[in-house]
């Protein structure tokens, strides 16, 4: 039960970082934390259904539900591609505006 609350804390931490942080790279870090928190949540909930990893061998019983793991693998894959894309955008934005602060960038692009 405590673990559930802690995961919710992690979730809120990610959202807070995305809303509040001014730096673009920090925003992407916060996005990573946010995604991780959901992955942890699903794996945590799925792990309570059994006591062994879902690997088929003879005589293994009481495995955990393998579906959440398969789904979260996909989510991790999507997360890394999003991170790479966002970081490449950040490099391009930095080259033009010479700053990583979203506040300054928006101010500069308004005057164009």
């Amino acid at each position, binding site marked *: 039960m405590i673990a559930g609350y*802690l995961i919710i804390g*992690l979730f809120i931490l990610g959202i807070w970082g995305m809303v509040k942080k001014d730096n673009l790279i920090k925003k992407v870090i916060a996005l*990573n934390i946010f995604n991780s928190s959901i992955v942890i949540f699903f*794996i945590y909930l799925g792990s309570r259904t059994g006591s062994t*990893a879902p690997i088929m061998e003879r005589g293994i019983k009481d*495995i955990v539900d393998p579906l959440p793991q398969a789904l979260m693998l996909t989510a991790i894959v999507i997360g*890394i591609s999003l*991170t790479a894309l966002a*970081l490449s955008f950040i490099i391009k934005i930095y080259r033009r505006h010479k700053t990583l602060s979203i506040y300054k960038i928006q101010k500069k692009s308004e005057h164009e």
Partner: protein
Amino acid sequence: MTETILILLIILGILSLEFKDLLNAVICLAIFSLLCSLLFYYLHAPDVAIAEAAVGAGVATVIFVLTINKTRRKEEVEEEE
């Protein structure tokens, strides 16, 4: 065990969001991913653990560091709006 790792994760998350030096923040994120993968292993999800270790702690850290290398290392001081 789960709770301990989660508390560590929250601490690392706060640190990686609060460090003014972006390189430190990214290293914290790498440790965050590594602890995540430990947690997944503990929660009977070895597949996800391997993926998270390889992706989160390996590739993601490298591209974050390269991005910081290409841009700037210190976070700018926020100006009041």
